[in-house]
């Protein structure tokens, strides 16, 4: 009996071993490393030098523009995504013909799993001088600048993260008990109040999941502001690439990275709180 338990524990340890090593070596230790770096100093030739100072954190305002852009465009981008995504998710879950539903859903997922780099690069074409501005010049509207503007970055954000917003909302709408909609109508509610009181309310966990996921990913976004913002609309991600790969100021970069993670955690916790309070339900699992 004793040997049996021992063997069972051994098998469990063997199964979990590789994943544990991976998580510790490539997630936990690296995180501790950047936490330690963030209170250190930049070595004269770049990199890190041991120290204990909060100077890096005090220096955060030096990258205020990157923080400001990110903190502004991440929620605005997520909100714009939501406004576009909700009707699509609603249509797919409640209105689309059953045999089309899965095909349409697959059509939403496919762009998300294809290269964001390639798709964002396509927008460089469309928004660039030979794209829409050339078409507009054709009908007499001259000198329209689209690329390298905050608007272009916002468009890229909505485009890139739309599928990630549609999916969780779709999942929560699809789980909705349709009898509730009928009951609401039977009790004399107008379509609008049924939507607000039943449909929207019950889909809020999905909305919160989508919103917080998109927002967290946007906080670390690099490609979209680089390619469509033309170096003018700098995000925290751009500041991090610059600090680690170009100016090699690792301690300052680490302090920014830690701050970024903390903001992400706050966003996640807030989303979870709001979601629980509003609907009494937990967030929808995405996978």
């Amino acid at each position: 009996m004793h040997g049996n338990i021992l063997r069972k524990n051994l098998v469990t340890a063997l199964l979990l071993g590789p994943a544990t090593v991976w998580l510790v070596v490539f997630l936990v230790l690296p995180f501790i490393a950047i936490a330690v770096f963030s209170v250190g100093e930049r070595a004269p030739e770049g990199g890190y030098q041991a120290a204990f100072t909060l100077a890096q954190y005090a220096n955060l305002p030096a990258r205020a523009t990157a923080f400001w852009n990110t903190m502004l465009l991440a929620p605005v981008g997520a909100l714009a995504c939501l406004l576009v995504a909700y009707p699509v998710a609603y249509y797919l879950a409640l209105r689309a013909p059953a045999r089309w539903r899965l095909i349409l859903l697959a059509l939403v997922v496919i762009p998300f799993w294809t290269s964001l780099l390639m798709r964002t690069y396509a927008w460089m074409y469309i928004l660039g001088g030979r794209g829409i501005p050339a078409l507009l010049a054709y009908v007499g509207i001259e000198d329209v600048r689209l690329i390298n503007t905050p608007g272009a970055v916002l468009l890229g954000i909505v485009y890139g993260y739309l599928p990630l917003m549609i999916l969780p909302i779709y999942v929560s709408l699809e789980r909705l008990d349709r009898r509730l909609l009928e009951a609401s109508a039977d009790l004399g509610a107008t379509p609008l109040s049924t939507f607000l009181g039943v449909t929207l309310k019950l889909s809020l966990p999905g909305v919160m999941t989508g919103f917080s996921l998109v927002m967290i990913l946007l906080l670390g976004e690099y490609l979209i502001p680089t390619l469509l913002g033309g170096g003018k609309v700098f995000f925290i991600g751009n500041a991090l690439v610059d600090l680690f790969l170009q100016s090699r100021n690792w301690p300052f970069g680490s302090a920014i990275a830690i701050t970024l993670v903390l903001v992400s955690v706050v966003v996640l916790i807030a989303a979870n709180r709001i979601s629980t309070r509003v609907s009494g339900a937990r967030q929808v699992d995405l996978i």
Partner: protein
Amino acid sequence: MRAFVIAVFAFLYLPIVLVVLFSFNAGHHASEFTGFSVQWYGKALSNPFLVEALKNSLFIATTSASLAALCGTAAALGLARVSVRTRAVFDALLGAAIVVPGVVIGISTLVALVQLFAVVNPFLASIWPTDQPPKLSLGYGSIIAAHGLFSMALVAMIVGTRLASLDRNLVEASGDLYATPLTTFRCIVLPQIMPAVIAGFLLAFTFSFDDFIVAFFVAGAQTTLPIYVFASIRRGVTPEINAIATIVLVASVLLVVLAQWQLRQRKQAN
């Protein structure tokens, strides 16, 4: 509402359609389509730097997705056997691996590996019998490991979900009929979780193949396809990129369709 949905789908697919269309453009410019030609495919595939980057990406994606599928599946099986508390710790770490932005994963992996090399390399040099000790550095290994972290977490979650819906009665019945645990695993559990494992592998492969930002930090001197494409875009758009983008898009679509199909099999089996 239907018109809005159609417009959104057009919005989603417009850039993809344009890239594919212009990859067959005979002319040099993006502004006008001057005739059908496959010349850019020829030019792309005879560019040695591009082919090298493509090979690197294929190697890295295959290796990291395979490792992730193995370790992720093992982890999902292991997690079904541990206490609620241990499980919660693991779930939090796996969730973190998925949610932490790529830019932070890239940075922290870079920082940790550079520190590790600073300790290990002098040690190796001191104990090595010959003058040429092996030297650890950034490259294939670090990209594979960093991609694998996210992928493994993804596989563990997908397989874990499948395990949770597995019919326990079948496992018990198998035991009652005197099958060894190994036989039960091979004949009952494995066939049922296999579609989830394959789907996890395909999604992990796609992620690794497409990832730019994590690789950008930990690649060292290596080049992957997204890193090459990013560098070319910054140098100025060339039609060659359209051809490569089309190949990558078609390959990603096939893999995702395959993964979805595997997951569908799983649902039908229920």
